[in-house]
């Protein structure tokens, strides 16, 4: 039988509705949001499988059987169609802010882990600095905001994705991923994301060093000065929510430097410094602190790109989070910030695109750019695309592709919340095609 994981394509053939299985954190705002939306639409609830239990070693098949037993059979009928008749749609959620899960993932990424499947890690051969063995990783203590070994976390995360993919193939043959684990891995690594976007011809901010990226503070400075790119963003390759992002600039005449970042440092005499996410933006101008943070980020993996001056409104700048669901741009929000870093949790404002002053034609350009960006990941159906609009020419650039970027509050599209819209779209269409099929127009499959 042909494997039917992969490309998700809307078509107008016979609607084939599938039950939904969510691997997430039961009861968190994401899984609850999905269940609420399904309930409001009269759909049977999704089966929620616990991330934490999966990471403790329970198999996907086991977890699924256990959950299925708890769901009454009749509730699988929606619009007269028995959803249980089709192989399920699998949806992986964000691991969220659970430390238990973070720790388990770091342990999975350990050099002595019993699962060494790095097939989904885009840079698997790059060693992680000072890796923690399983036993040490399992003893990590939660210190809120502390960035515990980001590269080992990402290695563990990719191993978990690979395991999910393997087990899904055997536990539920014919199942489809809403976002395929391979794509999730690629979207989570910004180096890989930008490479994929660039190869697909999507406009992205120019990387510092087209062929070879800098590897540390010194090489970054050298490249910036030799290429006259004096203002850049440096990003931890697998950070999210402004984690490990630095807006950095060098004064070409005086050599002075300014780094704006949420990364805070706690220095110790007898042991390595601790890096953490601070709730407010910090401004560093001393070389010792800046080079310390940057070298630490580069050791784990970093990506640096041109700082595109963003469009602004009354002295503030903004970017756009544009949600795309099955090749259609839907919910969008402008994230307006008095600082160069726009993430919403930094107390930045949210606005509609019109309120932010974008013309209808630029909004259209934002939507098109976002749709194309998701199309560069043909095995994925949903992502929140961060689009920059440049202040001068109003050109669009894709800064980030978030596989879990649909947690947007108080934004409606055609009267629907993000989860309502997704559930409606997913239940209304068939989205199976063989993995090798190129993107084609609706109705031609």
């Amino acid at each position: 039988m042909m494997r039917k994981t992969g490309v998700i394509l809307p078509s107008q053939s016979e609607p084939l509705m599938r039950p939904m299985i969510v691997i997430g954190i039961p009861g968190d705002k994401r899984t609850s949001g999905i269940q609420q939306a399904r309930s409001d639409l009269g759909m049977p609830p999704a089966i929620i499988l616990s991330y934490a239990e999966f990471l403790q070693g329970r198999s996907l098949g086991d977890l699924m059987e256990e959950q299925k037993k708890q769901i009454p059979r009749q509730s699988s009928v929606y619009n007269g169609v028995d959803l249980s008749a089709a192989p399920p749609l699998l949806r992986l959620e964000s691991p969220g802010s659970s430390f238990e899960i973070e720790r388990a993932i770091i342990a999975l990424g350990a050099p002595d882990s019993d699962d060494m499947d790095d097939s989904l890690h885009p840079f698997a051969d790059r060693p992680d600095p000072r890796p923690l063995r399983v036993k040490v990783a399992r003893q990590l203590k939660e210190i809120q905001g502390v960035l515990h070994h980001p590269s080992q976390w990402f290695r563990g995360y990719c191993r978990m994705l690979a395991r999910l993919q393997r087990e899904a193939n055997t536990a539920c043959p014919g199942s489809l991923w809403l976002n395929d684990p391979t794509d999730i891995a690629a979207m989570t690594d910004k180096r890989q994301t930008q490479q994929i976007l660039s190869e697909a011809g999507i406009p992205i901010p120019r990387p510092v060093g087209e062929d070879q990226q800098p590897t540390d503070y010194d090489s970054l400075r050298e490249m910036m000065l030799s290429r006259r790119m004096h203002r850049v963003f440096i990003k931890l390759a697998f950070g999210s929510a402004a984690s490990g992002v630095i807006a950095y600039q060098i004064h070409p005449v005086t050599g002075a430097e300014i780094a704006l970042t949420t990364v805070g440092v706690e220095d110790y005499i007898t042991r390595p410094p601790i890096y953490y996410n601070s709730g407010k933006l910090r401004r560093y101008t001393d070389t010792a602190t800046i080079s310390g943070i940057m070298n630490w980020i580069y050791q784990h993996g970093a990506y640096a790109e041109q700082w595109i001056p963003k469009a602004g409104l009354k002295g503030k700048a903004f970017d756009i989070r544009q949600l795309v669901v099955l090749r259609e741009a839907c919910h969008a929000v402008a994230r307006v910030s008095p600082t160069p870093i726009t993430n919403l949790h930094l107390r930045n404002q949210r606005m509609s695109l019109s309120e932010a002053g974008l013309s209808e034609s630029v909004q259209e350009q934002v939507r098109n750019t976002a749709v194309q960006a998701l199309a560069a990941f043909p095995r994925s159906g949903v992502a929140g695309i961060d689009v920059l609009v440049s202040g001068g020419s109003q050109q669009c650039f894709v800064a980030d592709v978030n596989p879990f970027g649909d947690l947007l509050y108080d934004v409606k599209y055609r009267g629907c919340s993000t989860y309502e819209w997704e559930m409606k779209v997913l239940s209304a269409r068939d989205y199976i095609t063989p993995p090798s099929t190129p993107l084609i127009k609706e109705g031609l499959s």
Partner: protein
Amino acid sequence: MTEVKLSIGYDEFEEGQRIGTEIEKLSSSPESSSLTSLIIGDWGQAYENSSEEVVESLVTHSASFPALRKLFIGEMGYEECEISWITQSDLSPLLPAFPELQSLTIQGGNELSLSELKHDKLEELIIISGGLGKAVLEQIATSQLPNLRKLELYLGVDNYGFDGSLADLLPLIEVGKFPKLTYLGLKNSQIQDEIASALANAPILDQLDTLDLSLGTLSDEGAELLLASDRIKKLKALNLSHHYMSDEMITRWKQSGLPVDVSDKQESDDEEDWRYPSITE
């Protein structure tokens, strides 16, 4: 009123576009003759290149802008250039070139000079900076601006070029220096308390409608003196927003019935530095 903003982005500058050419183009366009307000934004990597080209080009083409009343040199946000890194130049040649000018706004204090600050009609002078040098303060103090109604200076901090002291500001608030002045802003200062204490009973308050001491480090110390002053009570507006006053002091201002803005209280401690988990999106 017609207003135009000219700006050269990073990429445009790298591709060879220059602000002088843009000004020249504007000067030969039909709208130049009726233009009342001109904003010069980023003139191209302003952290490296000074505004000299802007000044030269505007002076050369000043005859093409007979209606110009407002001029802003350096309107750019941090997305384009840090305010404290904007490189200015001697802007005073602009004044004789535009004898009808009423309002001049300057952003950026580095290398800023106003060597010949003389103008019969200028009503408004605003300098926004992260740190204003005392040489510029002295130039303003020795200026001849008989029609000046509004003077607004962002004084800033010593890290970014403020090298003055209260003594450098006192000549600016002497009665008779600016006979028509009704709006005085000495703001964004690290010596905001000292400024407040010097102004609390300064005779110049009698001619002012508005006193703006916002955006600085004003604490209860300076606020106490202002609140006790009878001259302050005659103001139509007192702007103290963005300050370090205590809640008690804020309440006293609110109960005073004075037209005061005490919004945007700042916390001096580090308690706001809450941390958040790394993987939340």
